[in-house]
């Protein structure tokens, strides 16, 4: 357990991690009650939250928005990334990649002018925030394509477009899922931010802001736990989906 590269069984991992978590939580619990609420109180609040429809309504709003944003982001990313192998279109993709360095905060006003209502504003901000990260990851996948993949296409007598279809579109389809999984965190992180901009539709972000306003730190932490858990759940779900759709990735 304490040697590098040692392989340990699943049950051992489970037991080990459980003990580590319990130890950490007990240390936290034993801290003198001060500003930071204790795990037990957060747990209580979490229980209350989970039983309330308030939480689930807001989670649903956030999830729908995230999924919508992810869908549009993937479509835009794929379009520009696939086209990036055509020299004429490469600069567009490269520019999108560089857009990672634009902060969203400075663009909120422009987006407000450009969009009709709050939900559109949130969606477009999210998509604008996510696409550069997706494109960066996917472009790197494309750039690192094994030259042999193209050579096999050539020896099979494929044309350029046919090679693009086989190697990039079919061959890298599993990577699209991996990228969505890896970058889901970014979308999930931004959702709480953009929801603060237009509170009328609700969402976990609005809920978080409300609790913060009333200094209800216990509930803030409980909500954080929910957000964290949901993130992990989707991470796992996307991983599963990828293995199911592309059985060859786990070989």
């Amino acid at each position, binding site marked *: 357990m304490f040697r590098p590269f040692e392989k340990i069984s699943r049950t051992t991992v489970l037991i080990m991690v459980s003990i580590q978590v319990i130890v950490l939580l007990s240390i936290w619990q034993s801290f003198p009650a001060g500003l930071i609420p204790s795990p037990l109180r957060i747990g209580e609040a979490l229980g209350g939250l989970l039983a309330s429809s308030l939480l689930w309504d807001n989670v649903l709003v956030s999830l729908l928005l995230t999924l919508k944003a992810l869908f549009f982001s993937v479509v835009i990313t794929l379009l520009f990334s696939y086209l990036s192998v055509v020299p004429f279109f490469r600069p567009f993709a490269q520019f999108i990649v560089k857009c990672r360095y634009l902060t969203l905060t400075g663009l909120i006003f422009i987006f407000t002018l450009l969009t009709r209502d709050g939900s559109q504003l949130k969606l477009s901000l999210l998509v604008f925030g996510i696409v550069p990260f997706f494109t960066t990851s996917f472009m790197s996948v494309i750039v690192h394509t094994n030259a*042999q993949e193209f050579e*096999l296409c050539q*020896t099979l*007598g*494929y044309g350029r477009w046919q090679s693009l279809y086989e190697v990039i579109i079919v061959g890298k389809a599993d990577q699209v899922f991996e990228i969505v999984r890896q970058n889901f965190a970014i979308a999930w992180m931004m959702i709480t931010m953009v929801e603060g901009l237009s509170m009328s539709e609700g969402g976990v972000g609005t809920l978080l802001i409300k609790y913060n306003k009333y200094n209800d730190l216990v509930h803030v932490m409980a909500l954080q736990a929910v957000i964290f858990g949901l993130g992990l759940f989707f991470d796992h779900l996307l991983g599963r989906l990828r293995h199911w759709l592309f*059985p*060859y990735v786990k070989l």
Partner: protein
Amino acid sequence: MTIYSKGETLLQVKDLSLIYDNKCILRDINFSIEDIIRPGIQQGQVVSLIGRSGIGKTQLFRTLSGLQKPDRGQILVRESRPWSLRPVHAGDMGVIFQNYYQFGWRTVEQSLMLAAHQNKGLMGREAEAILEYAAQFDLSDVLKRYPRQLSGGQQQRVSIIQQLLKGSDFLLLDEPFSGLDVCVLDKVVNLLLKVSLSHEFKTLIIVSHDIVTTVAISDTVFILGKQDGVEGSTIVRSIDLMERGLAWQPNVQEEKAFGETIREIKACL
């Protein structure tokens, strides 16, 4: 002695040179492969390319197949209609690479199907042809598997069948005999022979370290080597095995002249 004559040129390499980072790898390579005509028999031929490790065999393959542009010189292949010699394009030749790369996202069956679809002669019979080859090559059980689930030898056979299904006249094989057990080796050798006999213009070019096995099925041997004092490899010797009566004989390995030829080739390396 068998009667034969040489006909039209199938492949011509003129003054080919290949340079990497100012280092000459291949220099002034000239050779041509002509159709071999035997009265009353339709058959292709086998050419072997022999040389030490690192001499540039794989690089020569890559240039021959059109995957790599030579720095100088030309590679011309036969165009049937209208009859002419034209520069080679990638895709004209079937190439079986040294490491048998296959698409990781395609099952064996799918990979073979991709190749079969490229062959107009197989139109409508692709699936049948795949099953037939798979049975011949001991691959029927692995058709549904992905390349990563195959042994090295199985991957190699998949690569060979794939290019056979594609059906180009030229088939370049880089080390087709390495890593095969004796049983499968015989099978592969026989299959290659069968392929070479299947059509008048079928031409197999084989690179191998297994000199005996390769020469036994060859009609012509080219030896790639270095000449004293100059950089870059070139064809230092070509041996016409037909002239020596060492072609088209199933038991050629038992002939005395065969042993002598092998010694002669080894001396050139």
